[in-house]
């Protein structure tokens, strides 16, 4: 797959209560956005361990998006805060192992913020396009 039409493969971890529902809302509202983010539903961003994120990169993801409820709106009271601590802590590590912290993004998207999903996906896809393919992502040509 040649670079000028590089289409990032992004893994998204969305919490069941806010962000995944926001994605549902974006759908029901027929808001169009890039197809680059492939989403995984978790009950809470608190469940998104560093292992998930590293695994995604290890398997060749160009970017990882973690999205949960706004601070204070977490369905489990404060799981999203643990997620934030974890993401913050990981960023420098991603730099050191040569992946680059820009490839990991944390976003608060409430269930009612359908349009926000489209925005975030657009922005993040653009960021990753600028960064180019992940050093770990060795592509096989699709047919």
């Amino acid at each position: 797959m040649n670079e000028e039409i590089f289409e990032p493969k992004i893994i998204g971890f969305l919490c069941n209560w806010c962000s995944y529902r926001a994605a549902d809302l974006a759908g029901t509202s027929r808001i169009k956005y890039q197809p680059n983010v492939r989403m995984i539903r978790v009950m809470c961003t608190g469940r998104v361990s560093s292992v998930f994120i590293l695994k995604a990169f290890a398997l060749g993801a160009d970017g990882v998006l973690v999205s949960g409820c706004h601070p204070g709106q977490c369905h489990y009271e404060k799981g999203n805060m643990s997620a934030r601590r974890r993401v913050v802590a990981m960023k420098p590590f991603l730099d050191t192992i040569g992946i680059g912290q820009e490839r990991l993004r944390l976003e608060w998207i409430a269930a009612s913020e359908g349009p926000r999903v489209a925005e975030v996906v657009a922005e993040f896809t653009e960021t990753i396009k600028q960064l180019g393919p992940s050093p770990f992502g060795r592509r096989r040509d699709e047919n």
Partner: protein
Amino acid sequence: MTEKVGVYICHCGSNIAGIIDVEGLAEWAGENLEGVTVSRDYRFMCSSLGQELIEEDIKNEGLTRVVVGACSPHLHEKTFRRVCANAGLNPYLFQMASLREQISWVTTDKDKADEKARALIAGAVRRVQLQEELEPSEVPVNPNTLVVGGGIAGIQASLELADAGHHVYLVEREPSIGGHMAQFDKTFPTLDCAACILTPKMSDVGTHDNITLLSYSEVEEVSGFVGNFDVRIRKKASYIKEEDCTGCGICIEKCPKTVVDDVFEAGLGYRKAVYRPFPQAVPKFPVIDYETCIYFEKGTCKACEKFCPTGAIDFEQQDSYLDLNVGNIILTTGCDVFNADQIPQYGYGRLANVFTSLEFERMCNAAGPTEGKIVLRDGVTEPQSVAIIHCVGSRDKNYNAYCSNVCCMAALKFGHLVMEKTDAKVTSFYIDMRTPHKGYEEFYERLQEEGMKFVRGRAAEVTNAARTPNEDGKLIVQAEDTLLGKQRRIPVDMVILMGALEPQVDARDVALQFGISCSMNGWFTERHPKLDPVATMTDGVFIAGTCQGPKDIPDTVSQGAAAAARVLGMITRGTVLIEPIVATINEDKCSGCRICNNLCPYSAIEFLEDKDVSYINAALCKGCGTCVAACPSQAISGAHFSNEQIFSEIGGLLYDVVGGNGAKAPAPESELVLA
């Protein structure tokens, strides 16, 4: 381990098939994804025929796993789990891929849509093969119900449940139930008197054997889960011994302190420091307002105590607490009204004869500050002309973008009341007249016949700056009459601002307390906007009335009854299934570091001193997985969201990336690939 996976791709009519090549997708899954033994596409998987299709395959083809690529799991996961169960397959061996919400509805490029669809199916297929049989635990439902908020919604819900023979705890923040409806004089479109239809229901609540009325109280804490909530109520000190008080009202009569009543009288009238919001208040007991009572301020007075015939006054009284256990909760916390002085050009607070809709409701009310007389701020002069301004704080991005639903009809009601009680001319300034209910449009026509004038144009400003003699001493409403395309200045004596309905100021805190979510505006979010309007995402917590969004009395009452019906369903069933998505600790791996102990929001994790390991109480665990992610020694595993399951889902999603091994069988145990 070789599983037999069945893959089912739904067309959802053209909703999915219109963008995604569903036949191609099913074919591809069958050919490329290891473990897939059956792969079909069908027009409507959720239809009974679609469901039978899956059941047949499970029985005849011996499927051990099922994947359905259709809509969001939030819509039909339950449906298909039931299908599996019917065919004897554990429902947790099923996985859903949201092809519609996440692809066909949001993607324009068909090829890219197909690519993403393959990824989602691959992810689901790989994940499902590692999913494990789970058994939801069944817990009994406590038949008692907590209703929060004593407005008409809460009253309706409480009576429905109580009449059905179940106990209700009705909590009300104010000294009396009744809510906004109790402030009104008439109700549209039938113009029957609000008090006449409300007060009987209020006294029913007050006297009902199955209702414990907790007025002047607030919910302090909520814990537990559907079927079995623990709730702590704080009963605010009223300094009145209810057991001794006869409600004779002598204390109120004798109280020397008069203050403006900003709550029930909407700031248009006065009350004493010891007060009962209105004569028909339920319960009948007055309360002493700590903030304004002379005794609490200066240490002397006690006039009420001196004159109370039954010695029911108790200045030493403290807040008391009440711990309840209930099976279900109905939130009917209602709404607030827009604070009109935020819009300077309408002059509220600056121009004396500009009133808010709530002030005007009180003015019309025979029991209100003016005994129902419609007068200017001086309290005596009857207006000759009245302007009613719609959409004050509604349909306005500067304040609230939404339509408040009731204002147009309330404006018509006001028009009628003004013309009935005075000789004043009434002009309404509207953007669009919205009367979409039974008998509403007819009411609009009736007001036209009664001579109410309508200017289609949002009032631009209300000013007291007269330009011509006929404007002198008047309030001038300036607006474009959009049907004429001309600017008009209409001099009037009185202006009524139809303020928007807004969420209660503390709505977000309440939502957080009960574990439900709010819309961006602050309205409580229902489980489904059309098909599940009174349930919330939290099982056992229901919502009704204006806390869910602006609505009028008929809709509010229907929702109150609907919520009660949902609760009755739960009570009748008697038990409820708890999702088995909980975390468990492998004692051999646990290092006893206790990191997880404080992380758990529900303190479901305790430390077993004797074994020196942590232990999770499944009954309290809600399955958020925070502890699982945090455990340094990987000793905690989250059912249905294990590392292995998520890893293989990632692998599938990245099927088209070398290293993803998308098409191959999932790696059984997790290896941390970063060497």
